């Protein structure tokens, strides 16, 4: 049986809250929030999104600005451009894609992370890094330079 995919066409401009229980492809413009929770958002090559997005997976071939929260994966393809913050346990960025912002890949429950991130609350304090690594002498590379 053929299942039709939900889509927002090139000429559509949508502002506000968008939510759904199925996968969605955006080729038009969306500003606001998108909540697909357990589904996949695909931003097509013509898509422009300026929003906070929550989905299971987010695939970007077009342009996105904002916060991307995916419980499974964010995938920015070669033609994709993202400016903003990503929260996802897995992030793939193709060679040639544009990204500027932060990528949070901490493997905690993403919904918890999402809530924390959306609220703008900073992460819990961390302890300093492990003990100092001593430099090993190298005779292969040339010489050590002590500054």
């Amino acid at each position, binding site marked *: 049986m053929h299942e039709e995919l939900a889509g927002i066409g090139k000429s559509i401009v949508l502002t506000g809250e968008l939510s759904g229980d199925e996968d969605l492809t955006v080729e038009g413009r969306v500003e606001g929030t998108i909540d697909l929770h357990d589904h996949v958002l695909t931003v097509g090559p013509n898509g422009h999104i300026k929003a906070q997005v929550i989905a299971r997976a987010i695939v970007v071939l077009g342009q996105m600005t904002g916060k991307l929260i995916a419980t499974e994966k964010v995938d920015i393809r070669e033609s994709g451009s993202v400016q903003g913050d990503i929260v996802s346990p897995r992030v793939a960025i193709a060679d040639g894609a544009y990204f500027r912002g932060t990528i949070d890949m901490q493997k905690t429950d993403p919904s918890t992370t999402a809530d924390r991130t959306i609220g703008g609350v900073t992460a819990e304090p961390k302890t300093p890094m492990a003990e100092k690594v001593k430099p090993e002498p190298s005779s292969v590379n040339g010489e050590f*330079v002590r500054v």
Partner: protein
Amino acid sequence: MERRTVTAVSAETVYASKTLASFLSLLFARPAAEVVDLGPVIGSNVTFIGDRVDCKIHVEDLYADIDRHLRQGTLDQLSEFLSGRFPLPDASIDAVLGWDIFDYLAPPAASALAGELVRILRPGGALLGFFGPRACDDPRYTKYFIEDDSHLRSRSYPSACGQRWVLQNRDISIMFAGLELCDSVLLKSGVREILFRKSILS
């Protein structure tokens, strides 16, 4: 330094990096590291680091900032810009991938950036930087791809920046006052790979 392979395709070079291994071992020892990458986004680096440690990576691409200032004719404002470039709290970052960004900054801008990086590094945090041996006007930047724990692949790409600066070891030492020299390697190419750490006691 042992050169593993040299390929003519896109003038890419793979080479061993001792400081990278030390840097990554420090980074991977952190359960929830925050990393600042001063270069353009490299998807494979993000995947490499993300697969090994829970982390948050700030992709800053200062090379694009330099190009933008060049195009706008505002290079004289770069120092001031870099002084406020990182809206991050003091001592909030575990590691900085500086690559060779300092080669493209005039001394005042380089000092301003170094000061900011020292500020945001948390005690025990690490900073990796590459410092070129000679001034030149090669209008290209370099992308560094992490191949594995101890090898990098470099690929040049066009830039608007036409000038490279040379920092002497003494200047580097002064710029990064507040950090300890952890490891320093002089490559056959003359490039100095330097790994700094912020003292745990600071």
